Structures are given as C-alpha cells and as structure tokens.
C-alpha cells in the first residue's frame, strides 16, 4: 500500500449531515481508510484540540470543515486548521456559503433577538420558566469558572475568515464528489497529478437544469405559484412549469439532481450560485420575476394586481437565499430609520 494522506474532518456549527454523507460512501469508507489517515475529527476519532495544536504547521494534507462559523470556537478552529493544513476545504453549503444557519443573519435585532426567540418565555415552543439563558462565563457553586464560546454577530462563509483552497458545496456534498475529491488529493500527493486550480468549486460550471431530466416548456410563463404540497407533482415536467419554485436554474449542478430526479422535489439551491453571478438569491429572484404571470393586459395592469402576482412568492429572502444568505451581496438584516 502506498503512502497515506492525512485528513482532518472537522465540524463547526453543523447539523452533522455532512458527516452522514461521508459515512454514506458505504463500503468505500474502508477504502478511504486505506488511502487516508484521519488525524483530527470530532466525530470519527478521539482527538482533542491539544492534539491538533501539537501538530506541526502544514502537517495535515487536507482539512474538510463542515458547518458554519456560528461562534468563536468555530472561528478559532478554522484558523487553527488553516495553520496546520496544506489544503483547506469548505465542505458543504454552511461552510461554503453560510448555509441555512446564516439565515439567522436575517433576524432584525441580531443575536439578542434570536436568544429571546429561542429561550424567551413568549415563544410557544419554549419551556423555560426560570428564563435561563446561556452565559459566556459561569461560576459553578464550587467556584470553578466554566466558559461557553461567544456567538458571532454574523455568520459568514469560512473564506471570509481564512483562506480557502477548495469548496465542496451541497447540503450535504454529493457522495461521488467526496470520493473523487479525496481520491484526487491522494493521487496528487502520491503521483503528483495536478489538483484543480485554487479556489475551485468541486462541482459543475453549469446549473442544475443540466442534470435534471425534467421536460421544459417552450416558453415559461408561470400563471400561479404552487407550494409542492398543494398540487399533484408531475414527475416528468419541470417544476417551474408547474408553478413550483425550483432553484435549479440558479444553482450549480453537481449533485446529480437527486431532489428533482429521485425525490420529486424541487431544487432548494444548496450547491450555491454559478461562478458568473454576483448573488444566487438575486439571480433567482430576477429569473422568477421575469417569468411571473405575463398577462395580456399589461398596459392597464394596476399596482394592486401586480402586487398580488408577486405576493404569491412566500418569503422571498428565505426562498431564494435558503443556503447562501451568508454569502449574499447584503448578508445581514439592518435596522433602518423610520421616517
């Protein structure tokens, strides 16, 4: 057996779905262990930060970091791994674009408001009669001081914090991509085969429509927006044609269109935008707005009617930026002056 590469698989603020994806490579997992040693991971092996700190700089061949940069620990870990690794990989949508957690940035009032919602008495789902909230520092009755990491004010993609070499987008990344990528790193180390250019996103250049087999109409004109549960979904027809918002048109391909092909569910956008647009959410918004219910009486259309047409889109921010708000042109809510 040839030389092994050293991998770190690190979790930041994550749902652990990315770990599942790695485990999902099934029998191949053993093959993975053949070519790679996992030298640091909070999930797969019993390693501690001290172990990591002791490693020489650049010791790790590649660190795959999944999860978003929610708190100072996540940030610390990212910085530490950067020092210790040759290649830093933003693994999964959270790490690459902020992911779903970055929608928290859209809460006006920031962390204060979020904590109020999560721990506050007035939210229906919360049972917290004492009104306990997490504290950064807490003295135990025995006098020891315990600390919890402080939350960051805003979630940003990992590359806003450290230099990132590669991106494996997705929620989670496609199993096949993971395999190819790790394989490529291995053969680079062992055989000197070239790696993709720095900064590359390990997915397609095109959008999901490329992989999606659904049949598209001659010309789009969405007469009514439907939520997926509201209609009988035709498994053959493009979702947009059925009035179901599908982000496939604005999302990078590479996932194999599993949702639209196998799941009979529209694309939610977890592979992020293509390389040529400024912002996934705004691109999708523009595309959808462009094909929304063109009528035969545009000349006499009233403002009310227009408003009704667009009001069919529930929660544009959440819909168009589900995975990428942290990476958006404007990536946090603001509080503006009232006149």
């Amino acid at each position, binding site marked *: 057996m040839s030389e092994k590469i050293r991998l770190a698989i690190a979790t930041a603020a994550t749902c652990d779905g990315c770990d599942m994806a790695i485990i999902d490579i099934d029998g191949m997992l053993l093959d993975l262990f053949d070519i790679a040693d996992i030298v640091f991971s909070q999930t797969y092996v019993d390693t501690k930060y001290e172990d990591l700190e002791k490693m020489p700089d650049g010791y790790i061949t590649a660190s795959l970091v999944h999860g978003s940069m929610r708190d100072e620990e996540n940030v610390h870990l990212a910085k530490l791994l950067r020092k210790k690794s040759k290649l830093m990989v933003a693994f999964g949508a959270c790490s690459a674009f902020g992911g779903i957690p970055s929608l928290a940035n*859209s809460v*006006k009032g920031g962390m204060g408001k979020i904590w109020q919602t999560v721990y506050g008495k007035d939210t229906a789902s919360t049972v917290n009669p004492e009104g306990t909230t997490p504290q950064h520092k807490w003295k135990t009755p025995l006098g020891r001081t315990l600390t919890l990491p402080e939350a960051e004010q805003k979630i940003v993609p990992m590359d806003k914090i450290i230099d990132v070499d590669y991106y494996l987008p997705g929620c989670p990344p496609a199993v096949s991509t993971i395999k190819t990528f790790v394989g490529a790193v291995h053969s680079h180390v062992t055989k000197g085969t070239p790696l993709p250019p720095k900064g590359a996103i390990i997915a397609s250049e095109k959008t999901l429509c490329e992989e999606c087999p659904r049949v598209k109409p001659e010309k789009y004109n969405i007469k009514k927006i439907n939520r997926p549960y509201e209609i009988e979904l035709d498994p053959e027809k493009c979702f947009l044609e059925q009035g179901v918002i599908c982000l496939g048109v604005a999302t990078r391909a590479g996932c194999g269109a599993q949702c639209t092909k196998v799941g009979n569910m529209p694309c939610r956008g977890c592979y992020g935008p293509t390389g040529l*647009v*400024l*912002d996934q*959410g*705004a*691109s999708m*918004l*523009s595309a*959808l*707005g*462009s094909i*929304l*219910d*063109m009528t035969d009486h*545009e*000349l006499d*259309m009233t403002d009310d009617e*227009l*408003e009704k*047409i*667009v*009001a069919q*889109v529930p*929660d*544009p*921010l959440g819909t*168009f930026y589900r995975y990428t708000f942290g990476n*958006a*042109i*404007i990536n946090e*809510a*603001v*509080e*503006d*002056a*009232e*006149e």
Partner: protein
Amino acid sequence: MSADKNKPLIVVLSCNWCTYAGADLAGVSRFQMPTNFRLIRTMCSARIDPELVLKAFAKGADGVIVAGCHPGDCHYISGNYRERRRIKLLEMMLKQIGISPKRFALEWISASEGQKFADTMRNFSAQIDRLGMSPIRIKLMEENERKEVAHV
C-alpha cells in the same frame, strides 16, 4: 463653499430611451434639483438586474431609483413589464432585509417629462434627507474610519 460629503447619496438606474431622455430634458429646461443623485444608464430598464440594486445598497447608497419608460412606451416593447415584476419582488425582499421601503422607488418617466424627472428627484431626495444615511453606509463609514485609524 465646499461640497458636503455627508449628504445622502442616491443612485438612479435608468433606461436610455425615456428616463435618461427625460433627465436630459430637465437639464435643457434648467430645472434645478438637489445635487445628490448619480444616474447610471442602461439601454432598457429590463437590463437592471436586482443584483445591481442590492449592490448599490450594499455599497452604501442611501436611496436607489430604478426608472424606465411608462407601460406601453418601452423602446423594446415589453422590457418594463418584466422589470416591474422583478422590482416588486425585490421590494418584498428589501423589506425583509430591513431597508426602509422609502429608500427605493420604481418610476416611469418619459422623454417629455423633464418636469416629472425634476420633481421625482426633489421629492425623493427630500424623503431620503428625512431618513438620513442608510445603516449600511453608516457601518461602512465606521469600518473605513477604523481602517484609517489603524493605518495611522
């Protein structure tokens, strides 16, 4: 007299055939207006991608106007019909982001409406004056100040 740097700034994105021409006419007619708007021209309002509006706000614009031909007047037949849908959607999203809806407007101004162009600029500018600088611009200015201090 020196220029006042802390005046709110308005970015106008307009089509070539109607609103730009209307602005030209306002100029020819010497209608006087506040100085704090800057107009960027595209051929049709339909070229004005919502990305660009977001970008303007993100870069610190205190107000943004998207302007084109009246319905039925678009030089390219139907561009403004497409644009007004995108803009309406964008307005919904800007509200979610928290940018005051008063900072953003979609206007139809024809080539012969120099007066309307002037009135729009006056009224919008007054409106933005009342709102003051955008929170994003304030933040950017603070950041730049910090950088400057760090530099010194």
